[in-house]
C-alpha cells in the first residue's frame, strides 16, 4: 500500500504547478469576486463593505436582461455561422488538401500573427459606409440601409471571423482521425456519397463539432471587443456592460454580480448542451 502511495507521488507533483496556477489565478480571484458581488459601497467613499447584499444580483438581472439575451443570441448565431463555414473547410483540409494541407492549416492560424484588436479594427474599414464591400452588399439588396458598421450584423460578423480558427482546428482534428477504410467500407456497401457523409463521416466528427462549438460559443458570449468597435449604440453585449460598470461607474459590486450570473448561465447552457450533444459525440467516438 505504501508502494501505491509512492507511486502516486509523481502524479501529485506533476499536478502541482497546474493546481497552483489554478488556485492563484482562478480560485482566489473568484473568491474575491464572490465577496465583492455581495458588497455595498460606503456612500461617497468608493470603499466597499461586505454585507450579504444579494440585491446586487437581482438588480443585475433586472437591469441588463436585454444585453444578456443579446449576448447569447449574437454568440449563438456566430457559432452556427462558424460551424457552417468551418466544416467544409476542415473537411477539405482533412481529406482533399493533399500536399497543400500544411499550407492551408497555416492559413487558418495565420491571422493570429496579428493581434485580435487590430484584426477587429480592420473590420471597421471593411464595413465602413463608403467601403466597396458595403456598396456591393447595398447594391444586391443585402444592406438595405446602406449601413453595416455599428449594427448587430457587424458584431456577429466580427465574432464569426475572430473565432473561426477555434472551430476549424478541433473539426480538422476529429475529421483527420477518421479511418479512411471506414469510408471505403461505406462505399463498398453501396452507400451514396451523401449518405456516407450523414451516416459515417458526420457522426464520427461529432467530438470535433462539440469541442469547436464550445470553444467558440463560450468566449463569444463574454466577448466585448467586437461590440465595442463594430457595434453601435444598441448593440452592447454583457461584456461591455461589465466593463462600463467597472471602469466608468465604479460600481464594482454590480460588475462582480453580473460576471457571476454570466458564468452561471454559461455553465448551465454548456451542461445541457454536453448532455444532449456530448453523449452522442462520445458514442460516435466509441464506434471508431
Amino acid at each position, binding site marked *: 500500500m505504501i508502494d501505491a502511495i509512492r507511486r502516486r507521488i509523481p502524479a501529485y507533483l506533476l499536478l502541482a504547478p497546474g493546481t497552483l496556477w489554478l488556485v492563484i489565478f482562478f480560485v*482566489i480571484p473568484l473568491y474575491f469576486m464572490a465577496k465583492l458581488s455581495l458588497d455595498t459601497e460606503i456612500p461617497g467613499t468608493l*470603499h466597499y*463593505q461586505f454585507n450579504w447584499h444579494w440585491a446586487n444580483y437581482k438588480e443585475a438581472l433586472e437591469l*441588463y436582461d436585454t444585453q444578456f439575451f443579446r449576448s447569447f443570441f449574437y454568440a449563438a448565431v456566430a457559432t452556427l455561422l462558424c460551424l457552417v463555414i468551418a466544416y467544409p473547410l476542415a473537411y477539405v483540409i482533412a481529406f482533399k488538401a493533399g500536399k497543400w494541407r500544411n499550407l492551408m492549416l497555416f492559413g487558418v492560424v495565420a491571422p493570429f500573427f496579428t493581434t485580435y484588436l487590430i484584426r477587429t479594427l480592420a473590420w471597421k474599414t471593411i464595413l465602413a459606409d463608403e467601403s466597396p464591400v458595403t456598396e456591393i452588399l447595398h447594391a444586391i439588396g443585402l444592406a438595405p440601409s446602406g449601413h453595416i458598421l455599428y449594427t448587430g450584423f457587424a458584431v456577429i460578423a466580427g465574432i464569426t471571423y475572430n473565432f473561426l480558427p477555434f472551430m476549424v482546428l478541433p473539426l480538422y482534428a476529429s475529421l483527420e482521425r477518421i479511418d479512411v477504410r471506414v469510408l471505403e467500407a461505406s462505399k463498398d456497401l453501396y452507400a451514396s456519397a451523401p449518405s456516407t457523409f450523414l451516416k459515417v463521416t458526420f457522426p464520427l466528427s461529432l467530438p470535433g463539432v462539440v469541442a469547436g462549438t464550445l470553444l467558440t460559443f463560450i468566449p463569444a458570449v463574454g466577448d466585448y471587443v467586437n461590440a465595442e468597435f463594430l457595434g*453601435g449604440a444598441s448593440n452592447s453585449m454583457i461584456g461591455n456592460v461589465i466593463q462600463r460598470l467597472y*471602469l466608468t461607474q465604479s460600481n464594482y459590486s454590480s460588475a462582480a454580480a453580473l460576471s457571476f450570473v454570466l458564468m452561471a448561465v454559461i455553465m448551465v447552457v454548456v451542461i445541457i448542451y454536453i448532455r444532449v450533444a456530448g453523449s452522442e459525440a462520445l458514442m460516435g467516438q466509441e464506434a471508431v
Partner: protein
Amino acid sequence: MTSPGRPRRKATVRVGVALAALLATLVLAACGSGIEGPVTVTVSKVALEKKASGDLVISNWPLYIDKKTVPNFEKATGVSVEYKEDINSNEEFFNKVQPQLTNGESGGRSIMVLADYMVAKMIKLGYLEELNHAALPEVKANLAKNLRHVPFDPERQYSVPWQSGMTGIIVNKDKAPDVHSICDLFNPKYKGKVDLLNEVRETVPLVMKCEGVDPEQATEADWMKAIEKIKGAVSDGQISRFTGNDYAQDLTSGNAVAVMGWSGDAVQLQADNPNLEWRMPTEGCMLWSEDMIIPVGAPNPTAAEAFMNYVYKPEVQANIAAYVNYVTPVEHVQEVLKKTEPEVAENDLIFPSAAFTKNCSPTPTLEGNEEKNVLKAFDEVLNG
C-alpha cells in the same frame, strides 16, 4: 475501500489543501484589494526641496503636448522626465489608479492631467497633494483670470489648468451643410450618421441646451428628460454610436456626418480634411478644463511643481498651444504667437473672444445621489 492506505492518502490531500490555503493567505496579504474596507489617506502639502532634480513621471492624454517642451524642460532643470500618454478617458483612468490612490500610492506618477469634475472628486476623496505656491510664480503671474477661482478649488490649492476647450459640433460641410445647432443633430435627414460623446457631463447638458434648459440651473428631472431624448434618438436609429476621440475616424471615413466634438480636435482634423469644421452650436457650447494635479504619495513633488511652473512661461506655452490647438489657460501667449505664428494667434477656436463663447456653459460637477442616478440613466443609454 477500507484499505489502510486510504487515510494516508486523505492526509496527503489535506496537507496539500492546507499548503494551498497558506499560500493563498500569503498572496492575499501581498496584494490587498484596496477596494474593500476603509483606509484613511492623509493629505499633505508639498514639501519643497531647494532645487528640482531626479526623475519625474507625468501621465497625460495622447497628442496633448508638443515635441519640444519635455526635452527643453529636461535641459533647463536636469530633471529626467518619463512622459506617458496613458490617459484615454477620465473615468477609466481614475478607476485604474483608484485602488493605489486609496492606499496612498501614486503608482510612481507625480503629475496627472484630468478633467475638472474628476479633480473635484479626487479632492473630496483626499487623493491629491496640496500644492506649494512658493514654487509656482509663473502660474501666479500668468494663469488666466477666469480660471483663478473655480468652485471646486477656489484658491487653486490642488490643481493647475493644463488646457481648456470647447465642446460643440463638428460637421462635414458637404454632407451636413445645415447642421448649426445641437437640435439639428436630431434632424431625421441625418439618421444613423450622428455620433454623440460618451461623456455624460458634456453630451447631456448640450442636449439640455437644445431643450432650452440652462445646464447651470438644471434639476435632476432636467437631466433625466434630456437623457430620455437621447434614448429615444438611439432607438430611432438617429444616433449611430457614442464615442470619445474616435469620432474623428467616423468623420473621415464617412460613417458620420455630424458629431459632438472638441475644439482642438477639430483644428487638427481640419488640417487633414478641409471639409470638416467645428461649429459653435447656436445654443452655445460646453467649456471645460483639464488640470495638472499631484496625487498622494507622488515621488519628487518638487520636480512636479517645477514642471507646472515651466509650462506656464508664455514662450513655452506658445509651443504647446500651437501644437495642441486647444484654448490655453496661460495669458500673454497670444502676444508671443502673433510674432511667431500669426495664423494660430488669429484662430477663434484657440483664442476665443468673450463674444464667441457668450452662450457657453461650464461643465457641471454632479454630486451625491444625483450623480449616481444620472450616471446610471446615461449608462443605460450607452449600454443600449
